[in-house]
């Protein structure tokens, strides 16, 4: 078991969020918004999709040393599960579900003759004798088998749950949100099962330039996207909360200094600040090659640093709105009363101000998440994002953008990264809408 820096922070974040979820669960002021979120169908469905992505990301964050004797690679649980897909690498490009390579080569026939054709893939559709005639039927059959198996498993699990509930004299009644959630779980479960089943026979999303499975790359990229989205907030929140509340509460020279700091940081275009910092890290790494021997560790440090610098550039917005809210709150009667009763200022901040700005923090965290995932792709394109060896959607797009000019075009890398990124960001955006609706005080009575 090996814990990378980002891994430990991710698990810290998971623990903190679970703890704070249970903490607010019984707070009366959180009841109504939480209930509103639970009743919102779009919100719950997008939350389920997010949780699906997060669980894949968590699987990919448990690293250990590979016990295969010849290599000392650090791999994750996800790598271990997806070992078949990972090892099925071809020579170069191949289209989704292809049985032949994208490019033509000279093939030696049995009798020594040479001809110019698309060679067969080593793994994709290798079980077929006559791929031209069989493969459409085979794909349909395999898809059906995968779907049928997974539905059977799903129904069995459902039946067991139902039976346990009956056994314990409870009946499960599903409202419309529950039904929709169940349906989406079914779709997610069967489609991922079918895809995994198919991917041991074919490359469901093709292979890239060096013959690596694109489906595998897209799945591995999930962790990078999530790390960028979540760890950045971990960096940003303490800065924004501490500075924002202090500026609003103490006013005077504290406010002046904090306002000066965030205006200065804000005035630098964030892309340039990120570029400058990443260039500096590159110089540092280039001059200290001894400290970064393992490529995975190096990539991990760069990812962590990217989160750090993104956090530094993005806390200013939240800080400003927290300052404005605190300015309002400190004039409220209950804060004035606490002050008049001689409650210590630190206590007022902790007991009265902080709980009443937490909804702004939550809204901004979910709103920022999607923009951070999108920003990662852009930054990787400019070469100031994650390490080129890290799997990420940005790197996939970056490697694939020249392939559009080829004839016939290589579209699958772009499509795969588009699909994964779009579904994650869309889910995050929809959930963010639902959360900000639920916590918006102006809509409290509807």
């Amino acid at each position, binding site marked *: 078991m090996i814990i990378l820096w980002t891994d430990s922070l991710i698990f810290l974040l998971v623990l903190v969020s679970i703890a704070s979820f249970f903490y607010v669960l019984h707070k009366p002021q959180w009841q109504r918004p939480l209930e509103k979120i639970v009743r919102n169908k779009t919100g719950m469905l997008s939350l389920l999709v997010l949780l699906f992505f997060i669980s894949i990301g968590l699987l990919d964050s448990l690293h250990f040393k590979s016990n295969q004797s010849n290599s000392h690679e650090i791999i994750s649980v996800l790598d271990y599960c997806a070992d078949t897909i990972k090892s099925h690498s071809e020579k170069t490009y191949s289209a989704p579900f292809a049985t032949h390579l994208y490019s033509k080569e000279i093939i030696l026939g049995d009798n020594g003759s040479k001809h110019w054709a698309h060679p067969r893939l080593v793994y994709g559709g290798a079980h077929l004798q006559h791929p031209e005639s069989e493969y459409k039927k085979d794909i349909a059959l395999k898809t059906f088998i995968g779907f049928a198996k997974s539905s059977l498993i799903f129904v069995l699990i459902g039946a067991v749950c139902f039976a346990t509930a009956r056994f314990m004299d409870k009946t499960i009644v599903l409202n419309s949100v529950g039904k929709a959630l169940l349906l989406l779980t079914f779709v997610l479960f069967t489609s991922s099962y079918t895809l995994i089943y198919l991917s041991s026979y074919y490359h469901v999303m093709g292979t890239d330039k060096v013959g690596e499975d694109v489906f595998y790359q897209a799945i591995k990229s999930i962790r990078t996207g999530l790390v960028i989205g979540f760890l950045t907030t971990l960096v940003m929140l303490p800065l924004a909360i501490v500075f924002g509340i202090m500026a609003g509460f103490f006013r005077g020279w504290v406010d002046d200094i904090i306002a000066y700091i965030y205006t200065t940081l804000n005035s630098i275009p964030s892309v340039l600040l990120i570029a*400058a910092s990443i260039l500096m890290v590159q110089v540092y790494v280039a001059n200290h090659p001894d400290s970064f021997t393992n490529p995975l560790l190096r990539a991990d440090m760069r990812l962590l640093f990217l989160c750090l610098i993104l956090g530094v550039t993005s806390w200013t917005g939240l800080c400003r709105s927290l300052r404005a809210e605190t300015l309002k709150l400190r004039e409220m009667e209950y804060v004035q009363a606490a002050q008049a009763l001689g409650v210590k200022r630190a206590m007022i901040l902790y007991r009265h101000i902080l709980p009443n700005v937490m909804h702004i923090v939550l809204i901004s965290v979910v709103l920022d998440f999607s923009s951070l995932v999108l920003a990662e792709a852009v930054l990787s394109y400019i070469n100031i994002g994650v390490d080129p060896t890290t799997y990420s959607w940005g790197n996939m*797009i970056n490697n694939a953008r020249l392939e559009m000019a080829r004839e016939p075009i290589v579209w699958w890398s772009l499509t795969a990264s588009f699909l994964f990124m779009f579904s994650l960001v869309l889910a995050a955006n929809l959930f963010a809408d639902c959360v900000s609706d639920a916590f918006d005080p102006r809509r409290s009575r509807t």
Partner: protein
Amino acid sequence: MIYYIIHRFLYAFPLLMGVNILTFVLFFVVNSPDDMARMQLGQKHITQQAINIWKQQHGYDLPLIWNEKADNPIAETIFYQKSVHLFVFDFGISDSGRNIGADIKQRMWPSLAVALPSLVIGLFVNISLALMIVLFRNTYLEHLGIMLCVMLMSISGLFYIIGGQFLLSKILLLVPISGFDSGVNGIKFLILPVLIAVISGIGSGVRWYRTLFLEEVEKDYVRTARAKGLSETQVLFKHILKNAMLPILTGIVVILPLLFMGSLLTESFFSIPGLGSYTIDAINRQDFAIVRSMVFLGSVLYIIGLLLTDISYTLVDPRVRLS
């Protein structure tokens, strides 16, 4: 009024000084000039002599902030030569030996040629669509519109550019795929970048303007206007749009100066010789002098934008007190 503007203007100096110190720390203190030289020369075993020559060529062979040997201990330092000189827009020469100031002057106009039409057309499209959605509020059309906006927002800007280039230039062959030309000949090169910039901004833009309009819709004067018997469209265009123009315009003023900086992505994909592609090239070549100049230029333009916003508030809205 004049006093207020001077006050705001003076506040810009400490901000720029802060930016300057931050970039100085980032570029010279975190890594010494020796480290940069080693990175630029790129070989594993370079002699100290080679490093010294490189430093001398690029003017990095001075102490950082205090030069004991020189007659003027402050002037002959890296901080003074490289950072303080930025205040008078003396950007110096880039690490590859070109004059940065001349490059910037030449390259800001192509950036503006793309960014300005994108802003104007985008504004028009976003505001009209947002008005449409507000007009049809509480109907299925509104839900559909918002849903479409969320979907448009969830697509990375890279896909808009790649998809647009592929569809319009490669399949339909309507416009050239990339390039730039000055004057009237340049228009055909500008169509696609502007179009893509507008489309990729629709999602977030329409949602933002919609919230602005919806805030106005609930106000009392709108109810009065309706009570007078005005039709919904009249209320929308004559009252709501007029009043919402204030936050819209002041929101635009702050980004006006930044239009010169151009867009990194658009310019690099369409090979437009503007400041955005200049920056990207500098980042890829690891040309620290250019990146440092662009950081400073960007913050100057942003601070000018803030100043203009303050001034325009006082000009447009008499309720704003000058303090």
